[in-house]
Each structure stands twice: as C-alpha cells, then as structure tokens.
C-alpha cells in the first residue's frame, strides 16, 4: 500500500460473490476516494470486469451514492439487485 492510501474491505454477496470466488476483497485507495473510484478499481480485477455500470453499494450498511467518499474503516458492500420475499 502506498503511503496516504487507505485500506477498504469490500464485502460481496450473491452473484457478485460467485463471480469473484470469495466473500470479500481488500483494496487500497487514495484518501478521499469515492465509491466510483472503488468500483473502477474493482473492475480491474478480471473476475469483476463484468460488473454493471452502477451496481448498488452500501457503505456502513446504508445504500450509498457513487459520489460518497470513503474513509478508513468503512464497511463497504457490493450488492446485486435484491430478490427477497
């Protein structure tokens, strides 16, 4: 990790978890990075290259906009379209 970067732990569920083959992934991003930056970084992983343009993301268990900035220790999750009930 480069100095000044923050580690972000990303949880994946359902179809996205199966794409990656793991329930979570750790990435490091520059301080002040936004959700959209995180998505760009995740798409660089070959397994996640097929992520949709704007997948639903939760930050600290709330749905978050792509412009939401991320801080150290945030709980970030990548959520496929929900299918409860």
């Amino acid at each position, binding site marked *: 990790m480069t100095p000044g970067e923050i580690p972000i732990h990303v949880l994946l*569920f359902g179809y996205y978890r199966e794409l990656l083959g793991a329930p979570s992934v750790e990435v490091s991003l520059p301080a002040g990075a936004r959700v959209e930056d995180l998505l760009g970084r995740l798409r660089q992983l070959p397994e996640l290259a097929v992520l949709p343009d704007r997948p639903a993301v939760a930050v600290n268990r*709330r749905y978050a906009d792509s412009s939401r900035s991320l801080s150290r220790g945030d709980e970030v999750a990548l959520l496929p*379209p*929900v299918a409860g*009930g």
Partner: protein
Amino acid sequence: MADPDLIARVVDRTISSADLANEIASDQDGAVVCFEGRVRTRNRGRQVVRLHYEAYSEMADETRREIAVEALRRHGARTVAVLHRIGTLEIGEVSVAIAASAAHRSDAFEVVRYVIEQVKDRLPVWKREEYADGSSEWLDGVSPPAEREGSE
C-alpha cells in the same frame, strides 16, 4: 431492541406468520393481518426443487427495522413484525412472514402491504433457484435506490 413493538430479523429457522401474530396480538386491537411468502414449485416455466436465500444480515436487520418504522408512521397500526428466512428452503416453506396488529382492519392491511413491497424493493437478500434438472440460477432482482442516506 430499541422498540419492543418491532420484531425484525433474518433467521435460519422455520418461520410462521401465525406465531408472529400471537406474539404481537393485543386486547386493544381488533384486527390482525398475516402474510406469508412461500417457495413455489414452478417459476418462469421451470420446475423448482428448492431455493437458497442469502442475506447481508447485519444490513438486512437494520433495513427491516427502518421499513417497519416507516410502515407504522404512514399507517395507524399499533405494531408490525417481519421475519425473513435465509438458508435452504424446500417447496412450501415460508421465506417471509409478516403480521400487523391494529385497532381496525384497513390499517393492518396497509401496513402489511407496505412492508412486503419494501422488503421486495430494498432488503439486501438474494435467492438462487435450484431446478429439477440439477442446474441453478440467481434470480433477477430489483436494483435498490442508489442513495438512501438522509432519506426516511
């Protein structure tokens, strides 16, 4: 739990709206409405043998509680309880159970309707159908709103 009148959980055991109704029933109320979502044997023309549900449990518990609070704020029911099951469910098993108790029937019906629609729209739960031919598929779902922070 902050409000003892709200029961909102993701569980990996069998659930029943009748049990929920008994938990929330009150002598003040003249109406209890129950809803159950169940695993059905056919979906989109294919023979389903079972369903596998997965949840982001920590978020789902908070989302469910928000939904219940919203439902009671919008309608006059006294209480509402909702459970969603996770894990493997066989045909006929209950995946979601909701019960609402109110002085009068219209509020109880409205609250249950609101809760099930919101569960479908935004609860972080996913399901994979398993078919008679041995294959399985994640079901297409609803894209939740991109932003909910600051909203009710």
